[in-house]
């Protein structure tokens, strides 16, 4: 049943996309912060997050892997331009990346929807 893995993969990818969206939002919020270096996360690789996080036994426990960056590697991206104040956030570039995230997320949810329809039709509901 390798087909079941599709939903796991889609979940992982959606998670990766939402982390990327958060990093983009962080860049945009810090667009005018002096010395802020624009960041991005490493490319999506299936299976990256499967065995990553620890189980919290209490809701009050801080899980170092549960932050927005999760188990994805966040690093400074190569700067297109550098402001006099040292910031490297380029707003058009961030908007472009956000557009890519949106398109990929749409594809992800559409694939999941049609996969779900296939499963449901198999049951003849």
């Amino acid at each position, binding site marked *: 049943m390798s087909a079941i893995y599709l939903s796991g993969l889609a*979940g992982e990818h*959606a*998670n990766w*996309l*939402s*982390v990327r*969206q*958060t990093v*983009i*939002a*962080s860049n*945009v*919020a*810090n*667009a*005018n*912060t*002096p010395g*802020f270096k624009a*960041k991005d996360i490493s490319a999506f690789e299936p299976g990256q997050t499967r065995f990553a996080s620890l189980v919290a036994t209490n809701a009050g426990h801080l899980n170092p892997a*549960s*932050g*927005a*960056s*999760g188990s994805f590697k966040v690093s400074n991206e190569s700067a297109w331009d550098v402001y006099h104040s040292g910031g490297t956030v380029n*707003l058009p570039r*961030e*908007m472009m990346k*956000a557009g890519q*995230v*949106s398109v990929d*997320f*749409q594809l992800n*949810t559409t694939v*999941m*929807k049609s996969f*779900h*329809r296939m499963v*449901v039709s198999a049951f003849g509901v």
Partner: protein
Amino acid sequence: MVDTLKAAMAVSTSGIAAQTLRIRVISENIANSSVTADTSQGDPYQRKTVSFSSQVDRVNGVTGVKVNSVNSTLGQYTQVFDPNHVAADENGMVKMPKVDVMMEMADMRETVRSYQANVQAVRQARELISMTIDMMRG
């Protein structure tokens, strides 16, 4: 995943708040651009500037932004010749605030662009959340 997107919204909100304060300070500068002292000894309005710094939200682990400080540019003024002014000194010179309205306008445009970018980021996070919810509609 939706929690992550909500964190993205929180970060964008911090950006919106920071830019709001910035535009408030800019309008203060423009409104007070010709405020002088009442006496020849007094100082005119001091132009204010804001500085931002990034701030890590420990709960979400994301980097937001906050206004670090609002600084006054102390002791900076220009002088104009106006002997009848109440704040004129013995040479007839009046200290005027060092506010360049063109520069404030340029600063304001930049603020508006950053604000728009933050609003766009909130809108996009909301779209991603509703796409996730829409999966349930089949």
